[in-house]
C-alpha cells in the first residue's frame, strides 16, 4: 500500500503544498527572530521559507513542539453572552484540517503519549477533533543532536508512526512514504498537484540500537527508592521555579480552566498550566499540598518517570532534549536520571 514517492527538492514539495493551501492549513518549522518554531507556510517570508530545509532536517527538534497543534496553549471552548438571566452560547470556529510538515520522530512519539491521557476515559473531544484533522509528515534524523536522548526512551530517530515519513536523499531529493490511510490520501493529493515519481526504496539510515534503552519499570522502581532522597531538595535550591520546562516539554499536558468575561459577554477557555507554579495546587483556604519548590520539582519528575509508568505503562519522556536546552539552570530529565542513578546513568 505505502509505495514511496519522490520529488527532486524540498522546494517542489513546498510548491505542491502551496497548491493545497485552499484545503489545508500547512505548517513547517522555520526561524522567527532566531527562534525555531512551526509557522504557517503561507505566511512565511522568502528567507523563512529557505530556512525550512535546514531546520526540518536538523538533528534536533525546534523550540516549540507539535503538541500545540493538538493541545493548543489556549483554547476557547465556550463563548457566551447574557441578556438578563438568559445565557446563550455562541458556536465556535471549527478547527480547519492542517498539515504539519517536518515534525521529528520524538515529537510524533510525544503525541502518542498524550493520546493515552486525552483519548482515554471521558474522551477529550477537542483534542480528538484536532488529532483527526491533522496529518503529520515526520522527517528522518540522520544523527543525534547534543542534547538528544530519544533512543534511550525507545524512540527511533528514523522511524515514527507519523502519517507520512519524509527523508532526504544525498542529492536533496525528497522521499515521502505514507504509513497511514490519512498519509496515503495526502500523498495522492500531493501527486495530483506536484511532480512526484513513484520509487521503491526509501534511504532511511539504520540506527543499530547501540544505545541501550531505559526500562520503564526499572526507572519507576529507582524513582520510588529516591522519593525521600535529598536530591530533590538540592535541585530545588538552584531551580528558579519558572514554567519553561513544562510549557516546552512535548509530553506535558496539564491545563487550567479559566473564565474571562466583561459585563454580559465572556469565554471559558482551557490553557497550559505548570505544576512548577505555586497556584497550580493552591486552594481557596490557602491550603496547598505542594507548598515548597522541592515538592513541586519532585512531583514533576515523578509524574514523568513514575506516576505515568504506573498509570500508562510507559515513561512520559521522548528524549527530545528541550528541557536540557531551555532550562535556565540546567535541570533536565538526564540530569535527574544521573542523580538518582538509573542503571544507564551511574552517578
Amino acid at each position, binding site marked *: 500500500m505505502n509505495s514511496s514517492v519522490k520529488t527532486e527538492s524540498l522546494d517542489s514539495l513546498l510548491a505542491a503544498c502551496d497548491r493545497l493551501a485552499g484545503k489545508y492549513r500547512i505548517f513547517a518549522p522555520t526561524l522567527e527572530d532566531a527562534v525555531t518554531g512551526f509557522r504557517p507556510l503561507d505566511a512565511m517570508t522568502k528567507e523563512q521559507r529557505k530556512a525550512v530545509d535546514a531546520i526540518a532536517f536538523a538533528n534536533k527538534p525546534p523550540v516549540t513542539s507539535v503538541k500545540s497543534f493538538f493541545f493548543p496553549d489556549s483554547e476557547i471552548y465556550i463563548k457566551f453572552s447574557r441578556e438578563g438571566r438568559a*445565557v446563550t452560547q455562541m458556536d465556535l470556529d471549527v478547527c480547519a484540517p492542517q498539515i504539519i510538515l517536518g515534525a521529528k520522530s520524538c515529537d510524533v512519539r510525544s503525541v502518542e503519549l498524550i493520546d493515552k491521557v486525552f483519548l482515554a476515559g471521558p474522551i477529550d473531544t477537542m483534542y480528538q477533533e484536532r488529532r483527526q484533522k491533522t496529518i503529520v509528515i515526520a522527517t528522518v534524523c540522520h544523527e543525534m543532536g547534543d542534547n538528544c536522548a530519544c533512543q534511550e526512551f525507545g524512540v527511533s530517530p528514523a522511524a515514527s508512526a507519523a502519517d507520512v515519513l519524509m527523508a532526504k536523499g544525498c542529492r536533496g531529493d525528497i522521499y515521502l512514504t505514507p504509513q497511514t490511510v490519512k498519509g496515503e490520501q495526502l500523498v495522492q493529493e500531493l501527486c495530483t498537484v506536484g511532480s512526484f515519481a513513484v520509487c521503491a526504496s526509501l534511504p532511511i539510515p539504520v540506527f543499530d540500537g547501540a544505545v541501550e534503552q531505559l526500562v520503564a519499570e526499572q526507572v519507576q522502581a529507582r524513582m520510588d527508592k529516591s522519593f525521600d532522597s535529598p536530591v530533590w531538595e538540592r535541585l530545588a535550591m538552584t531551580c528558579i521555579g519558572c514554567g519553561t520546562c513544562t510549557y516546552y516539554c512535548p509530553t506535558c499536558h496539564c491545563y487550567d*480552566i479559566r473564565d474571562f*468575561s466583561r459585563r454580559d459577554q465572556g469565554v471559558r477557555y482551557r490553557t497550559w498550566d505548570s505544576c512548577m507554579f505555586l497556584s497550580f*495546587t493552591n486552594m481557596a*483556604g490557602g491550603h496547598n499540598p505542594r507548598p515548597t519548590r522541592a515538592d513541586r520539582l519532585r512531583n514533576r519528575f515523578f*509524574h514523568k518517570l513514575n*506516576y505515568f509508568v504506573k498509570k500508562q505503562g510507559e515513561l512520559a519522556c521522548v528524549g527530545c532534549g528541550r528541557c536540557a536546552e531551555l532550562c535556565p539552570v540546567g535541570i533536565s530529565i538526564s540530569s535527574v536520571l544521573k542523580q538518582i542513578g538509573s542503571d544507564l546513568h551511574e552517578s
Partner: protein
Amino acid sequence: MNPNPLLPVKGAVTNVICESRDVKTFQIKPENLFYHLPGQCAMLSLLGIGEALFSITSPPGRDYLEFSIKRVGKLTEALHQLGVGDEIGIRGPYGNGFPIEDLQGKNLLFIGGGIGLAPLRSLVQYAIDNRALYANKLHLVYGARSVEDLLFERDIRGEWPKERDVQVNLSVDVPHQDWDGFVGYVPQYLEQLPLDPENTVAVTCGPPIMIKYVLKTLEKLGFPPEQIVTTLEYKMKCGIGKCGRCNLDEYYVCKDGPVFYLSDLLKIKNDFCK
C-alpha cells in the same frame, strides 16, 4: 460524536436553604438528572466566573441534587447570590463515592467537621433510606467551630436522632451559654465516647488538620486502617483525571478518589493531609 466532557449542562436552582451565616444548601435540577453514588461530586459552573467541584449532599434516588456551599472565594460568593429559578451549569457525577457494598451489615461511625458533613450526609441519609442493608448502629460525631456553624439542623437534631439505633453526638470549639454539649475538638471528643471498633467502619470528612488527628485517635482506639474511610480535598479543575493537578502520588483525587481507605492512603508516599 460524544459530547465534550468539560461542557456543563444547564440546571435550575429549585430551593435554597440557609444553613449558617456562610453556608447555604442549593437544591438543583439538571436538565438530564444523572444517577450518583453517595460521596460523589459534581462541577458547578457560573459562566464568566468559574467552576468548582462540590460534593453532592443529597442521597441517590431523589429527583434533585443538593450542594452545601461555604462562601470562601469568588465563585462561592457568586453562587451564594443565586435564588430559586436561577440558572446554573453542572456536570458530573465525578469521583468514586463511598464503598456502599463494603459498608453493608456494619456499624457505621460518621465523623464530620464543619462543611465536611456535606458528603457524609449523603451517605447517612442513604443508609437510613436503605435501613435493611444498613441495619446496624449508625453513630454520627459532628463538630463545628461554633453553635451557629452547625449545619443541617433539621437532620442532626431533627430526623436522624429519631431513627432506630442512630446516635448523634455534637461538639463545638467555642462555648456558648445555651450549649450543654461537648466543647472542644472532634478528636478529643472521640476519646471520651464509648467506641467499639468491632465490625465498625469509621467514615471521616473535614478539614485536613482534623482528619490528621481523627485518624491518630481512631488508631489509638483500635480501628484498623481497613476500617477507616476518608475523603480528601484537593484543587480540581477538570474533574475527569486529565488536567493533572489533583494528583496524590499517581492517583487523581477527582477520579480515583476523593474517597480512600486509610489502608490505601498509608501506602502513598506523599503526606495526604499535609
